[in-house]
């Protein structure tokens, strides 16, 4: 979900501090998991949808961003529907879908650098204990968001190259050239991070 770009705007969610948004998202997750009562979950899902649309993201773009995760949610819900009960399936769907929509709403209204700053701040206590370097973790998050689309695009290119040469396109055979090319770039990117003065020690 994070690979969606934040959109400019002045909605309520845009104005809330990042930390508060993350805390609210966390609280919402706990509440959603405390109950299986549809009288609570259905309104929660509707509210999440309203919040997502209030960010100024059009319905089409909103759907494009969440459809992949929603599809997974649907599969999980379907499994519950078949193997547990219809009510449980519906509850699982509402609960997870509401969470996905809320997370998408937070993502759409939070700039990545604000998000990285917040991660750094949240991790500072752990840094004092000597467990992590906060700046490293936040850079790692930034790098994932930066390069995931690139890696997906490269996967597409390798698949096209296989097709062009009449080779079967099997995910596993594509993985090897993908990994090799990605590692080669990773070296250069690590160098670029040094070149820009990031402290690694």
């Amino acid at each position, binding site marked *: 979900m994070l690979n969606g770009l934040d959109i*400019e705007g002045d909605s309520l969610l845009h104005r809330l501090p990042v930390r508060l948004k993350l805390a609210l998202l966390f609280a919402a997750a706990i509440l959603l998991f405390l109950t299986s009562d549809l009288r609570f979950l259905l309104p929660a899902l509707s509210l999440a949808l309203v919040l997502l649309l209030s960010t100024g993201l059009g319905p089409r773009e909103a759907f494009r961003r969440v459809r992949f995760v929603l599809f997974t949610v649907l599969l999980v819900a379907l499994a519950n529907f078949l193997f547990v009960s219809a009510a449980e399936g519906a509850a699982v769907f509402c609960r997870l879908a509401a969470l996905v929509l809320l997370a998408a709403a937070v993502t759409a209204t939070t*700039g990545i*650098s604000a998000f990285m700053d917040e991660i750094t701040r949240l991790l500072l206590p752990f840094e004092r204990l000597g467990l992590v370097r906060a700046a490293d973790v936040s*850079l790692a998050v*930034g790098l994932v968001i930066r390069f995931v*689309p690139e890696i997906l*695009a490269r996967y597409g290119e390798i698949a096209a190259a296989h097709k062009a040469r009449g080779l079967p396109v099997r995910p596993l055979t594509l993985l090897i050239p993908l990994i090799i090319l990605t590692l080669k770039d990773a070296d250069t990117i690590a160098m670029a991070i040094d*070149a*820009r003065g*990031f402290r690694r020690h």
Partner: protein
Amino acid sequence: MDIVFSAATMHYAGRVALHPLSLSLCERRIGVVGLNGSGKTTMARMINGLVKPTDGRVTVDGLDTITDEDAARGKTGLIFQNPQHQMILPVLADDIAFGLKNRGLDKVEIESRTQAILERFGIAHLARRRVHELSGGESQLGAIASVLVTGPELLILDEPTNQLDLKNRAMIERTLAALPEQVLVITHDLPLLDGFDRVLVFHEGRLAADERPQTAISAYKRIASC
């Protein structure tokens, strides 16, 4: 600013990428040419301290790139062969701010410097764009902005017009010509070196010629034709 190579050498697993190189660079516009694999990128990365000489030393404004790594690196900025490889954060403005953040500047200062550099290069409208969606010319400008924003005295560019169309090539040429900073350009695009003060020709890891552009380019053409 003076860049001094003192018998600087580079070996990779027994193979020599750069034979002992001794030279001093202080001109405002320096070009570097040579065949593929002749050691140009290796030499350029040595100035930035990303590649450490296996023997000998390199100093930037008197600072050794090994013992004074951070201070020496702060004086130079490097644009990589593929500008996309040096954009580290997903949104252009954030990526430009990255180098400033690493220097511990405060938020207000970071924002005003980022905005100023975006305007200087006429790319303020790209500030919030995802870097992987930028075109070749836009990436190249973005990369230059992200490096110059921290105020290096020397800008090193590794084949800046490599993947550009004619229009963007001309745009980069104009941009470089207008830079007040000292510039060192590695290129296969020979017309880019018109009006340069000095051109180095590398061949098989050695400095084969070190002349004014016209003479150096003729030497390079001789090397290329044998």
